[in-house]
């Protein structure tokens, strides 16, 4: 309360401050993510060439010249980590977008047209039974490895979760009287779906998308770490860690810094997701 009265210079400021105070996780998560996105965007100005190597500077410890040390080719780990943020964020956002869009489409169809439902849900059950990382690896190794393929391969295992979510919302909503009223008054099916049903899926979808984004970033790093992900010449965090494996005992910083960045990124996204879930979906108790 004391903190409140301090900030109560204007009513608006109070309300804004209050919102931040009640949703600290969204704010903290968003701030960290904003910072990471900025770093990724201005990478060319704050970091050197992530591929530029110098055989004379191999496996240097972290120092003023190389804040995160160098790897076995004498490449600056700091520059690679900064550029790696681009890959991770791109993967996270793309996967979240693709999985949500595809899942939304399939989920609405399943929820609304019961005939499609039976077949499609069996396929989704089957997809969900396969461990995501194996499914992704299998898809990637069959195609020529590229960032696009990695993104698609990580998106596919995420789709069934979105489908189930959207489908359950649609099933719940389509039994409600206002949908019945819309049908009775002759509203076109497409309008019912887009105007009356879709908006209900928005809140849970946003939350699901943040989790898909976090898990995609971890999966991409895991795949690259295994040597089955993003092509090795691209400096993604997983690739930097993967190359650092061999030299781990003498140069642990090659693994440590990208690993910590990865953890911070995922943490920030999850914090935001938790916060969004609490504000957007009041049915789930805050205490989760």
């Amino acid at each position, binding site marked *: 309360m004391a903190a409140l009265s301090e900030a109560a210079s204007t009513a608006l400021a109070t309300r804004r401050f209050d919102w931040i105070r009640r949703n600290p996780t969204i704010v903290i998560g968003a701030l960290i993510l904003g910072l990471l996105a900025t770093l990724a965007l201005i990478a060319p100005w704050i970091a050197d060439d992530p591929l530029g190597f110098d055989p004379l500077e191999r496996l240097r410890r972290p120092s003023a010249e190389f804040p995160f040390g160098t790897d076995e080719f004498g490449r600056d780990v700091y520059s690679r980590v900064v550029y790696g943020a681009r890959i991770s964020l791109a993967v996270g956002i793309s996967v979240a977008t693709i999985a949500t869009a595809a899942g939304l489409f399939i989920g609405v169809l399943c929820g609304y047209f019961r005939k499609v439902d039976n077949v499609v849900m*069996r*396929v989704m*059950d*089957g*997809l969900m*039974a*396969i*461990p*995501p*990382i*194996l*499914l992704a*690896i*299998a*898809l990637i*190794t*069959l*195609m020529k490895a590229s960032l696009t393929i990695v993104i698609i391969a990580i998106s596919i295992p995420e789709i069934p979760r979105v489908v189930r979510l959207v489908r359950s919302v649609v099933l719940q909503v389509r039994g409600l009287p206002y949908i019945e009223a819309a049908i009775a008054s002759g509203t076109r099916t497409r309008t019912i779906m887009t105007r009356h049903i879709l908006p209900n899926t928005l809140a849970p979808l946003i939350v699901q998308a943040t989790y898909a984004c*976090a898990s995609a970033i*971890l*999966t991409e*790093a*895991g795949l690259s*770490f*295994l*040597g*089955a992900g993003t092509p090795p010449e691209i400096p993604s965090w997983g690739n930097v*860690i993967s190359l650092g494996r061999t030299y*781990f*005992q003498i140069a*642990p910083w090659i*693994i*440590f810094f990208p*690993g*910590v960045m*990865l*953890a*911070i990124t*995922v*943490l920030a996204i*999850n*914090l935001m997701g*938790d916060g969004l879930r609490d504000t957007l979906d009041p049915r789930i*108790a805050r*205490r*989760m």
Partner: protein
Amino acid sequence: MTAYIVRRLLATIPVMIVVALFVFLLLHLTPGDPAAVIAGDDASPADIEGVRRKLGLDRPIWEQFGIYVMNLLRGDLGTSIFSNLPVMTLVKQRLEPSLVLAVSTLVVAITVAIPMGVIAAWKARTLVDRVVMGFSVLGFAVPVFLVGYLLIYVFAIELRWLPVQGYKPLSQGVWQTLRSITLPAIALGMVYTALIARITRASMLEVLSEDYIRTARAKGVATPGVLLHHALKNAAVPIVTVIGIGLTLLISGVVLTETVFNIPGLGRLTVDAILKRDYPIVQGLIILFAAVKVLVNLLIDISYTFFDPRIRY
């Protein structure tokens, strides 16, 4: 009950058929000739032709799938392209480390997470609770390879308490096995612990606000009795469910953890097979992992009746 189990078992059949179809189609839906994909980049036309005949890729596709499923039903997961050994034999050779790792991880995670969740719920909104919640948020974010390498660095390289990497089979003594599996199990257990602790806390909070808990307290039941006997048992269903959901995390984690700690288990088998493009192994393992997951989910559904007799099928 029996009828329910039979019904559930039958329901797993379409799921497994979809998995088998998907795994089968993986090779055929990809652009290009599957035989050429398997034979590799620098294979001669004769090599490709050999692969094609060996895998039966020259037959009609529905016939291939039929043969594939019939073989699966007989427990034949195919034959490795490189070693020419049946995939089942390779799986048996590599099963022990993965099983030991998975079971120890489960044991570590459950024994740590449930007390954590119970205490956090009991002391809700105190410092203890915040620490537990903080850990569970962190546990989700820190990748298993980072935890793994940090543990190796501290406990194996700096302190020299435990071996750096590798796996000692049970035949060389249980103690050695446990020593070699401790760090991997802790690293892999992080996510799982976070997941279980979180759901335990949430489920316990729900139960602790019930009237019968107040009644139990009022009639003088001591706190441990209330927490464990009255509350935890009633909070068990969501906890058991999440342990089942987490199995996916566990399987994906096994693949990564075995690479970090150089454990020659099923995870390594999978990754090596993928890097060598030994598709029959990859296909066989995906089916195997999916089957394990489907079966565990079935067991979990059945276990509900044990924790909550009100649930009847």
